[in-house]
Structure formats: structure tokens, C-alpha cells
């Protein structure tokens, strides 16, 4: 049997991903009932959601706006003319007997997402399309029940489906792509990106072929991964499963099927379906009129686009001169990135600002598991601390160990006020230091003589005395210089 590395050398992995993202709208895609997650079963419903006879859908224009935003973020072409289509199939979580989707006219076509894996490999994953559709309800097949329970709260919740070309060649690349997609939907505030709750879902189409082969192999669709890490695991496992079939001469038995991922053992298993035949009989949805995206409307969305992670990352590197690592950490969420931007508008010491964000601020947030929105301090307070350190009024260690915690307890105080209150500010004025130096030298006349005879190591003793006299508030560097000067006189 081949090891994973040997298998990767012999066979090429080919993956395309389909991501479903639930849109953060108030109401559903084609009806006005709520989209709220976690409500009591069958309480977010309407006659349209339940497909009562004589009801007609009406399209929520926010869904188009969100889909266009995602399309613009992914460099897609936005379709001017849009119609909806019916995808017909019977399943109890879909009361109408069809899903309203976009088959012929996806709202976004083409486009790409630049990704970089943990190993530093960069690539561009091309998109085939992004289209709009509706979610189905939830069926529960409980072991102790002889019937299936159906909750239609989710039926009709708007989705966008983001479909890649079969461009992905590494499990790590799939991981990086999904991380990027989740970051984008969160920056755009169109989806909360929560994979555990299923508001972001990913299906992977996986096939293998010998390196150098140009034809694609038969693909298997894997579903049911509830984290980005599990998508990577599922791809790794499915790759090896297919390799083993090929290696054992059973490549022909590989069927195009849907398999489920089991997170507990990292394997995929076949979803035995009674429905052998998939024939969705798409046709244009006659109940919804076509809609046209005008250039004016498109421009209005373009101008309202928030800054995107890649833009901010480049800015942090090029304008603020930060290392790539800093720029990546600081753009992980939009909230952190914008907080940092605010901080950088109040100090020009960008590297110090970055260090404060990635050090003290982040560790405070991590410890209490808080979002930056609930951070007690303002960017101005951190900027002030940075300023005090720059002016040698404060050492970094005093600032981070004493001033910063004290400010967190009293967030209404300015940094300078608090530093004064705690008597932390360094005082290196000549008025303070010069008399202390004179007194020290007068106290040890013989040591001064020894120093002058060449015992230079005694300098530390004099500096220590002066520092003690200043109660630690003088700047040691400056005291050093002044004591030296006094001794050389």
C-alpha cells in the first residue's frame, strides 16, 4: 500500500468546492418570515414557505445586493439580466416540490480568489459562478422515532452558492480557500461564516488521476464537514480511498456518488439513496419576474464596499511597513483591522502599534474571549502609551505590566493621568538628577579616587545610588551619561 506521500507523487488530486453561505438578511429570500437561527421549530413560517396553494413569492432585493458584493470581492462579472429557475425534486423539507435557484443566469460569473497555504504556496482559485437560491428546511431522522420530523424555519432562507473550477490540487489549498471565503463574507457582513451552525457549508467534489493525465477522473461528492479543518481531512481521506481502489485495480468500480464525512473517524461513507435518478428538470420560475442590475445600481454597491482583507493587508505592509505576519494577524477580522487603522491615525510608530495589538491587547481579548468591540480602552489610550514610551517617560515593561492593567481597570482615565497617579513617569530633569549625583560622589570620595585610578567597574555603583535616590524614576541611560560626565571632570 502506498503512503500518503507516495500516493501524492503518483496521483494528482483534483478538487472543486461548492460553498453555501446563508445570507444575513432579516427576512427570507422570497417571503417575509424571519431568518433567525435557533427559534422554536416551525415558528418562522409563512404561507409562502409552507407552499400553500395560491401564494406567490416576491424576491428580497437585499439578497441580490449581498450576492453582488461577494461577486465584486471575488472579481466576478455581474450579470445584467437575471431570472430564477425551478429545480424540481421531492423531499419533505422542501414543501413546494422545487427549489428556487438560478440555473441559466447566475448573478456572478467567473472571478477568482487568491489564496496562500500555510506552507507559503500561492495560487488563484478560479470561480465558475456564484448564484442565489433558497435553503431547505431541516429533517430529523431520530433513531427512537419511526417518522421523520420536519422543521421548516430554515426553508426559504437565502443562500448564495459559490462554485469553484476544479482548480484545487492540495488539501491545504482547500483549507486556505475556505479560510479566505469565510474572511470575505465576514468582512462584507453578508454571512456569519459559522460552519458548526451550518450558516457556511462546503461540499467537495474530489477525483484523482495519474500525474500528466489531462482527462479528469470520476468525481465523488463529499458532504457533511462542519469545520474548515474537517474539509481538509475529508479530502485527504477521500484521496487515499480512491488511490487504494486504483492501486488494487478496482478503479472501474469507483462510482460518482455522494459520500458523507464522519468527523469521529475521519472517513467518508456512502449515502445510500433510494432516489437513483437525479433529474431536476430545471425551468424558468414563472412566479418571479426577471430582474435587471443596472450600471447605476452596480456603481452604488461598488462605492459602498467596505475595505477588504487583502487591501488592508497590502496597506499595512506597504504604508505602515509592517512584516507580512503582522499584517495577516491584524487583518484576520475586520473589527481588529479597523481598530488598528484608528490607532495608526493617532500614532506614527506603526510597528509599536502592531506590537501592542498583537501582544497586550490580543492576549487580554483571548484570555477573556472577548471581541475587540468589547475592549475597554480606546485607540487613543494605546497611542498615548506609545507616545510616553517614545518620549522616554516610561519604559515598555512598566507600561505593559503596570500602566496597561491599571487602565483596563479604569478605562475612563487617560494614559498620562493614570501614569501620574501611579507615579510611573520617569523624571530625568537635571534639577532632579544633578543634586543626586553631587551627593553620591560626595558620599564616596575614596571610591571616586579608585575609579579615577582605573577601577572603571565602579560606575555601576554610582549609577545605582543615583537611581535609588530618584526612586527609580530617572531614565537609567541618561543617569549613566551624566555620572560619567561628572566623573571625567
Amino acid at each position, binding site marked *: 500500500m502506498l503512503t500518503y506521500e507516495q500516493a501524492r507523487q503518483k496521483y494528482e488530486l483534483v478538487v472543486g468546492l461548492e460553498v453555501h453561505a446563508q445570507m444575513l438578511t432579516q*427576512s427570507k429570500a422570497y417571503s417575509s418570515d424571519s431568518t433567525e437561527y435557533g427559534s422554536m421549530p*416551525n415558528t418562522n413560517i*409563512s404561507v409562502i414557505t409552507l407552499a400553500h396553494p395560491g401564494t406567490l413569492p416576491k424576491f*428580497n432585493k437585499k439578497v441580490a445586493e449581498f450576492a453582488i458584493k461577494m461577486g465584486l470581492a471575488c472579481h466576478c462579472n455581474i450579470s445584467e439580466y437575471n431570472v430564477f429557475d425551478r429545480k424540481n425534486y421531492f423531499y419533505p423539507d422542501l414543501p413546494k416540490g422545487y427549489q428556487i435557484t438560478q440555473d441559466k443566469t447566475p448573478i456572478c460569473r467567473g472571478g477568482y480568489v487568491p489564496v496562500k497555504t500555510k506552507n507559503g504556496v500561492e495560487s488563484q482559485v478560479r470561480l465558475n459562478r456564484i448564484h442565489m437560491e433558497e435553503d431547505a428546511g431541516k429533517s430529523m*431522522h431520530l433513531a427512537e*422515532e419511526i417518522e*421523520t*420530523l420536519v422543521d*421548516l424555519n430554515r426553508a426559504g432562507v437565502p443562500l448564495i452558492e459559490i462554485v469553484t473550477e476544479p482548480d484545487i490540487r492540495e488539501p491545504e489549498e482547500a483549507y486556505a480557500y475556505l479560510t479566505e471565503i469565510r474572511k470575505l463574507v465576514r468582512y462584507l457582513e453578508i454571512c456569519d461564516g459559522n460552519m458548526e451552525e451550518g450558516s457556511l457549508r462546503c461540499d467537495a467534489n474530489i477525483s484523482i488521476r495519474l500525474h500528466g493525465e489531462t482527462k479528469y477522473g470520476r468525481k465523488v461528492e463529499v458532504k457533511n464537514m462542519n469545520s474548515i479543518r474537517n474539509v481538509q481531512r475529508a479530502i485527504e481521506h477521500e484521496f487515499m480511498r480512491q488511490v487504494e481502489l486504483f492501486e488494487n485495480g478496482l478503479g472501474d468500480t469507483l462510482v460518482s456518488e455522494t459520500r458523507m464525512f464522519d468527523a469521529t473517524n475521519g472517513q467518508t461513507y456512502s449515502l445510500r439513496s433510494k432516489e437513483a435518478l437525479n433529474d431536476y428538470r430545471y425551468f424558468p420560475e414563472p412566479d418571479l419576474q426577471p430582474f435587471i442590475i443596472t450600471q447605476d445600481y452596480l456603481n452604488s454597491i461598488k462605492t459602498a464596499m467596505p475595505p477588504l482583507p487583502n487591501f488592508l493587508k497590502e496597506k499595512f505592509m506597504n504604508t505602515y511597513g509592517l512584516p507580512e505576519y503582522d499584517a495577516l494577524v491584524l487583518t484576520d477580522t475586520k473589527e481588529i483591522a479597523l481598530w488598528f487603522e484608528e490607532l495608526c491615525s493617532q500614532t506614527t510608530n506603526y510597528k509599536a502599534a502592531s506590537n501592542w495589538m498583537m501582544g497586550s491587547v490580543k492576549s487580554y481579548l483571548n484570555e477573556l474571549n472577548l471581541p475587540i468591540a468589547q475592549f475597554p480602552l480606546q485607540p487613543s489610550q494605546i497611542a498615548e502609551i506609545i507616545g510616553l514610551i517614545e518620549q522616554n517617560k516610561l519604559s515598555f515593561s512598566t507600561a505593559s505590566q503596570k500602566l496597561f492593567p491599571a487602565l483596563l481597570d479604569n478605562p475612563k482615565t487617560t494614559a498620562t493621568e493614570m501614569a501620574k497617579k501611579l507615579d510611573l513617569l520617569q523624571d530625568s530633569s537635571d534639577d532632579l538628577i544633578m543634586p543626586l549625583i553631587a551627593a553620591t560622589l560626595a558620599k564616596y570620595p575614596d571610591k571616586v579616587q579608585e575609579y579615577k585610578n582605573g577601577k572603571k567597574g565602579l560606575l555601576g555603583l554610582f549609577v545605582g545610588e543615583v537611581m535609588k535616590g530618584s526612586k527609580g524614576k530617572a531614565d537609567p541611560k541618561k543617569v549613566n551619561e551624566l555620572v560619567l560626565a561628572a566623573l571625567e571632570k
Partner: protein
Amino acid sequence: MKIDKELLHKIAHLARLDFNEQDETKMIDSLNEILDWVEQLNEVDTTGVKALTHMSVEVNALREDIMLPPLPHEKGLLNAPRKDSDYFRVPKVIE
């Protein structure tokens, strides 16, 4: 296009229709009649004519993203053949 027995069974399955053998012949004839009738349209030259998907010329019939009170839970479940206090109940669809 001609409807034969195989195609009829396929369509019937997709539509979840059940009928006896006597009706099969009737169904096949009737479906073929409809298709023949529609096929007359092939006689019209449609070169350069865009597919007509909607009968009205209206476009952009959109609604704002506003949430309205839902259908009350009890009313929603009222007509379901099988239900409990929370859920619609249907024959088990997965083993």
C-alpha cells in the same frame, strides 16, 4: 419526441404518480397528443428570437428586506396529515 412506456414510468416516478396498467396506454396517448400539438410551434422560424421565459414585460418586482409577523405555529401545522406539537411528521426518508 415520443413518450414510450419507459419514459412514462420515469416521469411518473419523478412526479410521484401511481396508476394502473389500463391507464398507462391512455396516459401515453394523451401525453403524445400534447407533445404533437406543441410541436406545431417548430414550424415557426424563430431564428434570432430570444427564448420567452415570462409572459409579462414587468421586471424588478422586488421587496425590501422587511420581516413581518409569521404565520402562527398552530395555524401552520393545522392542515398537516401527521404532526406533533412542534413538528410536521412524515414517513421516515432515511434508514
